């Protein structure tokens, strides 16, 4: 009797597990396409928790509903967006409009609704190259940024830097002047928070004006060799730290505080994308400094006197494959990018090709900096760079190997620039040999 009861119980438990495991799915509605009727409830999952909380997005939703009264928009802000979304993608419930977290281009179709042929978008939009796979577009950038270095114009003026540096030597000389003539920390690495260290990597291609720098690096067995983009990027950080031009104790840096410090002139420069400009200007206003003190310059390098800067998309917006109102989601994305004025208020470059550059990049154009976009990786090699990065455990998009580099530069770890770059080349080369073959 008892054993029978146990058996029944076990059956019940298994059935319960099975049920909870496959509550997914649901009926597929043939009319639920992005070209269908714009109606229904959509959830916009976003990383901009600040804009959810201060009601900015609700204002947008009201504007949107004037055009599409049958759509109901709700917002869900996630603080640890990247990490949490990657977990949620394994379910079917991850909102309707999402900012696409990093994934391999070959994985787009597993999670996202295709938006159409990339060729059809090319005349209208910028920043298409990162979220296309085999000619199909899966996401549109919410806006774009330029890459370069953020600096405090007042600090540089006080230090007596009259010309913006256009090479590593000029850069080090300028920072030295800041150190000698002002109380500011010349360059702030934000080592402890880590991710700001990886921001300078986005300049890959700017130094050699090469839109294919990424894929060339993925096939280069020794990229940390003088003359390449990655060498120039990492060398700039190494030499700045080695010359003592960065914060005293990098282990106790603080991102939120650094915004205030650069705005009030306690920090000279930080290598960040242009998305940071508006945040620093806000910090300046909140702390009694002038937003005009926040300047933006191109990465200190040049080719025959001309400087180049990359522009690229921020988070891309995509539509969940499991959305029940795909047409409404698609309408929201297009409206947000084209008509909402989002990029203008955020100081970003609009994804719409014909719209002008934002005001905060005027310094760029005045100095004759030439802007360009990267090319998409060739077919079959879309994920090669990240595969090599993962396999060699050199996290190009992260901070781990750069923190080690800063440690070496400040004398807190064994080695020197030559030995560390040689080690990086060796690890990278081994993975290139394995994967790029």
């Amino acid at each position, binding site marked *: 009797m008892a054993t029978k009861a146990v058996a029944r*119980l076990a059956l019940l*438990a298994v059935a319960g597990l099975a049920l909870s495991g496959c509550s997914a799915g649901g009926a597929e509605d043939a009319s639920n396409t992005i070209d269908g009727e714009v109606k229904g409830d959509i959830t916009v999952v976003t990383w901009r928790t600040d804009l959810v909380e201060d009601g900015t997005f609700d204002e947008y939703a009201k504007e949107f509903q004037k055009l599409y009264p049958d759509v109901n928009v709700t917002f869900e802000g996630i603080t640890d967006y990247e990490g949490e979304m990657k977990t949620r993608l394994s379910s079917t419930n991850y909102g309707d409009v999402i900012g696409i977290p990093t994934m*391999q281009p070959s994985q787009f179709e597993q999670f996202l609704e295709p938006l159409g042929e990339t060729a059809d978008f090319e005349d209208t939009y910028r920043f298409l190259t990162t979220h296309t796979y085999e000619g199909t577009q899966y996401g549109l950038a919410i806006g774009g940024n330029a890459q370069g270095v953020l600096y405090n114009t007042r600090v540089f003026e006080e230090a007596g830097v009259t010309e913006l540096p256009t090479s590593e030597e000029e850069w080090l000389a300028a920072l030295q002047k800041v150190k000698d003539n002002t109380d500011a920390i010349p360059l702030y690495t934000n080592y402890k928070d880590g991710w700001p260290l990886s921001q300078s990597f986005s300049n890959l291609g700017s130094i050699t004006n090469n839109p294919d720098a990424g894929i060339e690096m993925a096939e280069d067995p020794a990229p940390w060799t003088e003359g390449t983009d990655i060498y120039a990027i990492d060398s700039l950080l190494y030499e700045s730290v080695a010359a003592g031009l960065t914060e005293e104790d990098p*282990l*106790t840096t603080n991102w939120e505080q650094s915004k205030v410090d650069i705005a009030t002139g306690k920090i000279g420069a930080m290598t960040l994308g242009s998305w940071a400009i508006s945040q620093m200007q806000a910090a300046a206003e909140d702390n009694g400094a002038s937003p005009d003190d926040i300047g933006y310059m191109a990465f200190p390098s040049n080719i025959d006197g001309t400087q180049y800067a990359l522009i690229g998309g921020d988070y891309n917006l995509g539509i969940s494959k499991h959305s029940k109102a795909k047409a409404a989601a698609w309408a929201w994305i297009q409206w947000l990018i084209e008509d909402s004025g989002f990029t203008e208020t955020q100081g970003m470059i609009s994804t719409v090709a014909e719209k002008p550059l934002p005001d905060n990049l005027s310094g760029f154009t005045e100095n004759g900096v030439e802007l360009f976009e990267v090319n998409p990786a060739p077919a079959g090699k879309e994920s090669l760079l990240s595969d090599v990065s*993962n396999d060699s455990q050199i996290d190009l998009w*992260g*901070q781990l190997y750069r923190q080690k580099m800063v440690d070496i530069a400040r004398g807190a770890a064994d080695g020197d620039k030559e030995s560390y770059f040689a080690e990086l080349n060796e690890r990278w080369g081994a993975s290139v040999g394995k994967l790029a073959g």
Partner: protein
Amino acid sequence: MTDTALDTAPADTRAAVTVPAGSGRRFRGDSRGTGARPVGGSARGRLRRQLTPWLFVAGAVGLLLVFTYWPAANLLYYSITDWDGLDLTKNVIGFDNYVEVFTNPRIFSVFGVSLYYFAASFVQMALALYFATILSFSTRFANFFKGVLFFPYLINGVAIGFVFLYLFQPGGTLDTALGWFGLSDPPHWLGDPDIVNTSLAATSVWRYTGLNFVLFLGAIQSIPHEIYEAAELDGANRWQQFWAIILPGIRRVVGLSFILAISGSLSVFEIPFIMTGGANGSSTFVIETISTAFNFRNVGLASAMAVVLLVIVLIVTWIQRKVFPDEKVDLT
């Protein structure tokens, strides 16, 4: 800590399974006694009564299966795949991940950092034992001091990380306090690679001393009071009482604390993760596992690392139990 939870889990299930047989009998007896229902009753009623105790168990066992053993089984499965944490298909690649764990020197070298925390756990236990002994005798403001010592353990680990981050900053609280004593040139507590692990281990001592203290205090207070009185009549001083009565009396708890200390120092995580993120040579095995899974998108390898850590902790605990067997405490 989690590993000891795993350790005790099977015992819980055994206990849970044996209970319903008894309670079921009592249930039947009750219904017969009250006479509310005829003995035997309908077939449905009988079935329900037989099922009732199992339904009670089902809740607890179900939660245990779903939230402990099911994820653990998944972990074992992931550890033989090349999953990147996102893809819907997982390719089984056999034991390649385990080979990688044991052949890649970068993965195992971080265990050296655990030695700092292991050494610190001795300091921690000595401190806890000292205070527990003092406060178990009648001391002025004993309850106040007990509270003060236990308090750090109640604070959330993340908060502790931030508090100590400010404490260790150049020109921060610690440097200011040292300045009052004339130490004008303190080192970078977190920035100096020779000191960083000591600073972090000291933070860990500050946090966990309270736990050891409470365990020791409880054990000491369970020693019958007459034994102290007898010892005092025989003229034993406090030191002799400690060696002859207290230490042997709480040997089991000390042994348990050592097991917790060793498994804890092998799997240190939150304090270094929050305070340094594993930078500057303070990375531990769990931090390495996290970065393998989430920075390098290699959940398969990270799962294998987690399984290896679990096995190492189990082996270390087993060796410890063999070398220091759990002797019966006998004070009489």
